[in-house]
């Protein structure tokens, strides 16, 4: 996976939003035989047939990086399938309580903080099943018995955009979609066979 690779010939461009899980995503795509490129260059992202928006860390840092390269303006205009992963999904929303950050505004809701209690440790870390609320090619082959790996301290509410929900004390959005923009709160690259199925489905969009 070299940065020099021709963006016209990759299957997916991974947006470098400063997160640290880029390698895991790339390895997961490698295991599926997909060609990926990591970039923060608008020209590279605009030319890709599919775009992944990852991100681990703080919403404020990630948005600053996207603004610095102009990707905050490009991303909402993309017409190819885009998948936000974890923080990348949260960035699709209007606002995140994490650092009181204005985000991309593709989805209208606000991302809120999960409050810890003795019965609900935060961050939410662990394997959860999904409650499937809508049909989508991204969820092809996924059932109520499949587990996905979640690691997050903030969450989006279940609303009309939510394709699948999960619970950590309260219900939260696990898979969301608006038009060509999709997001997953869990980490498909670290969710064993079920996660690989999600990534395969994304590559088939």
């Amino acid at each position: 996976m070299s940065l020099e690779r021709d963006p016209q010939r990759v299957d997916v461009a991974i947006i470098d939003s400063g997160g640290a899980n880029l390698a895991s995503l790339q390895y997961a795509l490698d295991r599926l035989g997909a060609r990926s490129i990591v970039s923060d260059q608008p020209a590279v992202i605009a030319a890709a047939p599919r775009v992944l928006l990852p991100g681990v860390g703080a919403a404020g840092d990630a948005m600053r990086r996207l603004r610095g390269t102009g990707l905050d303006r490009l991303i909402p205009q993309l017409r190819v399938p885009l998948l936000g992963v974890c923080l990348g999904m949260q960035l699709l929303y209007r606002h995140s309580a994490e650092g009181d950050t204005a985000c991309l505004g593709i989805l209208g809701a606000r991302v809120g903080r999960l409050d810890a209690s003795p019965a609900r440790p935060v961050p939410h870390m662990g394997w959860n099943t999904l409650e499937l609320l809508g049909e989508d090619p991204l969820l092809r082959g996924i059932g109520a018995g499949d587990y996905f790996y979640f690691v997050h301290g903030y969450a989006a509410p279940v609303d009309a955009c939510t394709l699948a929900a999960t619970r950590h004390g309260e219900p939260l959005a696990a898979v969301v979609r608006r038009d060509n923009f999709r997001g997953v709160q869990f980490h498909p690259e670290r969710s064993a066979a079920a996660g690989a199925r999600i990534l395969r489905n994304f590559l088939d969009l």
Partner: protein
Amino acid sequence: MRDGQVVKGVRFREHRVVGDILELAARYRDQGADELVFYDITASPEGRSVDRDWVSRVARVLDIPFCVAGGIRSVADAERVLQAGAEKISVNSPALADPELIDRLSERFGAQCVVVGIDSQTTDDGYRVYQLTGDPSRACDSRRDTLAWVQEVQQRGAGEIVLNCMASDGTRHGYDIAQLQRVRALCRVPLVASGGAGTIEHFERAFREAQVDATLAASVFHSGAIAIPALKRELRAHGIEVRP
């Protein structure tokens, strides 16, 4: 981990080689482990950081999360490990020497990346945090009370606590339920029980009686005494929700 091989000791001593890291990683992945933790036990006592090469090799074969522990003393050390593909880094001795390290790691990477490992010894003065436990000749009392340290690391931004009860480590006599309960009462981040698992019932008790979020074990899996699929079947049969 020691010098590129997987080793396991008893009560932090007499470490024996149990296998090649990639083979073991793939085996546990296939058996249904939910997360793997790699401790480079020689890293802190020798004053060096974990060597990064094996981290990316492990990241290529694993499709489950994994955590790397050992000798992470700075944001730069952590960044190398996370960029190589680990989900989390775990700090132990370096956090005792420089507690603000936890703040810096949490600020840079988010709490969800930052695990604090606590090696806790039962003494006449209560539960005490030990440091440099990878080397029996240098392991010593850090002069910190375990329960106070559990609270401090959360305030500093730890996203998970792995409590390794040293008196039970490697003994297979069971997790230290009493100590886990004391820590659980103070712990609002995920708590992982470590040290002493010998039977399936031990795992079950840690979940049921100490409400831990996860259990960690090494000896019983390395030796083959407990197979992960059988363990998970039993836990599910007892009403504890685990991924099949």
